[in-house]
C-alpha cells in the first residue's frame, strides 16, 4: 500500500469537503477548530485546504511549532556557545534563522562559527565521534516526537564512551499549553485537531483530561490532506452533537497508550521542568531538561558561557498569534518589518510558523 498517495486522493478530499459543508450548512457562528501542531499548519496551507472548507468552518493555528516557541534566551545561549573555540553546533535546519536577542545562528555562521545542519541527532553523534578534538553541541528542540530521538542520541553517545557530545535541551510537551488555551476565557475553540506524531509517542489517552475538564472535542489527526479533512469532519460531528471525546482519525499510526518504549526513554534521560514559551510565558511542567544522571551531556551544565542580556522584540504579536487570538495579518509588523527574509518574531522564522505560512501561501 502507498501510505502517501492513497491519502492524497482528490476525490476523497472533495467528498469530505462536501460532507463538511452539508454538516455545517446554515450555521450562523462558524465552528472554530485549532490545529495545535505546526506540521498540520503546513499541510493545510500546502494543499490549500482552507479554500475547500465552507465559511462555517474556521481553522486557527496553535502553539505547536517548536521553533516558534523557543525563547530568545535559548538562542542567546546557543549563540554564545557557537562562539567558543573548537566547538561545533549541530542543529535541525529550522533553527538557523531564529532570531535571538541580537543575532541568529545564520548570522554567526556568516561570521565564522562552525554550525552544521543535520537530519538526525545521530548524525551529530557521528560528527562528535569523527572529531574527537571538537566539542559537538546538538540543539535539542521539539516536542514529544523529537525528544525521544535526542534521548536516543545521548544514550548512543554514552554507549560509545564519547565525552565531546552535548545537548542544549529545550524540549516542550504538548498537553500543558492545550490546557492553558482551553482555560483561557478569551479564546473559544470548538475542537482540537490533535498532533499526529506527538500522539504516536504520548498516545491519544493524553488528551482525555481536556475533554473531561473543558468539554472540548479532540481528534488525533494525520498529516495527509484526506486525514485533515476527515479530522475536521469528525470534530464537526462532535461539536454539532454537543459531544466532547477523544477520537483517533490517524489509527494507522496512533494508539491509545502511545509508544511505551519512547516514553520510557524520555523518563530516563529527561526531567520535567517549568519551561518558558516564547510569547506565552512559563508553563508549569511543560518542558523537558536533561536529567541529573546524564548531566555530563547537558551543554548548559558542562559548557558554561556568558550569555548576553535578554531583549524581547517590541511590537510583535507572536504570543497572541500562537494562542490563535489574532491572525497574522492583524500584526502591525506582518509583511512590512517582519518577513521570512528578515523575521522579527518566531512565527515568521520557521517555514511552518503561522506567519511564514500565511506570508508564503496565504496571500
Amino acid at each position, binding site marked *: 500500500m502507498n501510505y502517501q498517495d492513497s491519502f492524497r486522493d*482528490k476525490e476523497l478530499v472533495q467528498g469530505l469537503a462536501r460532507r463538511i459543508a452539508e454538516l455545517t450548512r446554515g450555521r450562523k457562528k462558524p465552528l472554530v477548530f485549532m490545529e495545535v501542531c505546526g506540521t498540520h499548519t503546513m499541510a493545510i496551507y500546502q*494543499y490549500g485546504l482552507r479554500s475547500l472548507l465552507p465559511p462555517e468552518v474556521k481553522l486557527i493555528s496553535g502553539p505547536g511549532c517548536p521553533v516558534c516557541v523557543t525563547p530568545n534566551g535559548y538562542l542567546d545561549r546557543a549563540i554564545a556557545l557557537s562562539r567558543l573555540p573548537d566547538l561545533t553546533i549541530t542543529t535541525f535546519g529550522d533553527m538557523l534563522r531564529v532570531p535571538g536577542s541580537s543575532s541568529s545562528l545564520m548570522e554567526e555562521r556568516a561570521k565564522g562559527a562552525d554550525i552544521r545542519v543535520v*537530519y538526525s541527532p545521530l548524525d551529530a553523534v557521528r*560528527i562528535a565521534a569523527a572529531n574527537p578534538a571538537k566539542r559537538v553541541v546538538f540543539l535539542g528542540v521539539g516536542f514529544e*516526537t523529537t525528544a525521544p530521538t535526542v534521548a536516543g542520541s545521548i544514550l548512543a553517545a554514552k554507549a560509545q564512551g564519547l565525552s565531546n557530545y552535548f545537548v542544549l535541551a529545550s524540549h516542550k510537551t504538548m498537553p500543558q499549553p492545550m490546557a492553558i488555551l482551553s482555560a483561557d476565557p478569551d479564546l473559544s475553540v470548538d475542537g482540537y485537531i490533535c498532533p499526529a506524531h506527538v500522539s504516536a509517542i504520548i498516545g491519544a489517552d493524553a488528551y482525555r483530561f481536556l475533554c473531561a475538564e473543558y468539554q472540548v472535542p479532540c481528534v488525533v489527526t494525520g498529516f495527509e490532506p484526506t486525514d485533515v479533512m476527515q479530522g475536521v469532519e469528525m470534530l464537526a460531528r462532535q461539536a454539532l452533537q454537543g459531544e466532547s471525546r477523544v477520537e483517533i482519525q490517524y489509527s494507522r499510526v496512533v494508539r491509545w497508550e502511545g509508544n511505551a518504549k519512547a516514553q520510557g526513554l524520555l523518563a530516563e534521560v529527561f526531567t520535567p521542568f517549568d519551561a518558558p514559551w516564547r510569547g506565552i510565558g512559563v508553563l508549569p511542567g511543560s518542558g523537558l531538561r536533561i536529567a541529573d544522571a546524564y548531566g555530563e551531556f547537558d551543554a548548559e551544565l558542562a559548557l558554561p558561557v556568558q550569555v548576553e542580556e535578554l531583549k524581547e522584540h517590541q511590537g510583535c504579536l507572536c504570543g497572541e498569534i500562537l494562542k490563535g487570538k489574532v491572525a497574522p495579518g492583524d500584526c502591525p509588523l506582518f509583511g512590512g518589518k517582519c518577513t521570512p*527574509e528578515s*523575521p522579527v518574531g518566531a512565527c515568521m522564522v520557521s517555514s511552518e510558523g503561522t506567519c511564514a505560512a500565511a506570508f508564503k501561501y496565504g496571500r
Partner: protein
Amino acid sequence: MNDDLILLGHGSGGKLSHQLLDELIIPNLSGVPAAGQNDAALLNIGGVKLAFTTDSYVVDPIFFPGGNIGDLAVNGTVNDLAMMGARPLCLSVGFILEEGFLKSELARIVISMREAADAAGVAIVTGDTKVVPRGKGDRIFINTSGIGAVEHSLSINGAAARVGDKVIVNGCIGDHGIAVLSAREGLEIDSGIKSDSAPLNGLVTELLPLGDALHVLRDPTRGGVATTLKEIALQSGVTVKLSEENLPVNAGVKGVCSILGLDPLYVANEGKLLALVAPERAGEALAIMRRHPLGKDAAVIGEVTESSAGRVVMETMVGGVRGVEMLAGEQLPRIC
C-alpha cells in the same frame, strides 16, 4: 537582524538575491539594464546582435551524481544564452583553485568541461587561473562567461507573458538540487537521483520556429520553478496559475522532499526550461519538446490567467488553491 552581513541566502537566487541586486549592486553600477532581470544582456555591436552573460559556480560537493562543477559551469552559461534565443558561440573560463587541490580532480573537471562544450557546440576560447592559499577558498570555484549570436528578431523576455499563455516545462523538476543535496556529507541519503545538468540550446533551436508565439524562455535554476515563475509574473504583470497535478516530479525527488520537508517547486534545476507560449501554438511546442531527448517528460504545468498583480497561484493536487511565493533565504532541511 544584522543587516551588514552577506548571508548564504543572498546567493540562493531567491528574494534575498534580488534585494542585494536591486539595492546594492545595480544602483552602484552604471549601464546595467533595469534589475538585471534576464538571463543575459542583449548587445548591438555595429549592427550585430549578441547575447552576453556570466555566471560563477561554487557547488558543494564538486562531484555529484550526474555531473560535476565543470560541466555545470559550461551548461549553465550555455543555457543563459539559450534562454535569450541566442546561439551560443564561445565561452571563457576562470578557475580559482585552493592550494592543495588535486591535479587529478582538476583534470576530471576540465575534461568534462570540454565534453560539455562539444555537446553544446561551443568553443572555450579564453581563460584564467588563480590559486589562493589553503583555507581561503573551497577547492575550486569556476566562472564562465559566454557570447551568443541572436539570429532572430523575436522579443523573448521575462516581461512578454500574455494572458492565455501556457506554461510548459521540458521535464521533471528538482533533480539537480536533490542530487547535490543527497551527495552532501552528513545527510546520508541514497536517492538514486542524478543531476539534470544539460545544454538546452539544441532544444531552444527547435522551439524558435514558433516565432511570435514564443513569449518567455527561462531556466529555473536556483530558487526553482516557483521563484522563476514569480519573477516572470512580476516582470510581465500577470497572474500565473499552476496545476500541481501536472507538475512532473521524479519519485526520488518526491521522496527526498518528503524526508527533508522540502518543496520540489523551490529545488534547483540545471537542464530545465520554462516556455510561455501563446495558447494556439502550445500543443505544437509541447510536441516539439517531447520529440527532443531533453524533453520527453515535457508537460503543460499552468497558464497565465490574468493581467494583474504579479501573482503565482497553484491548484493543489487535491483541488485546493494556494499562493506561491519566491524562495526566502536558503531552503533548509526541516524536521520539526
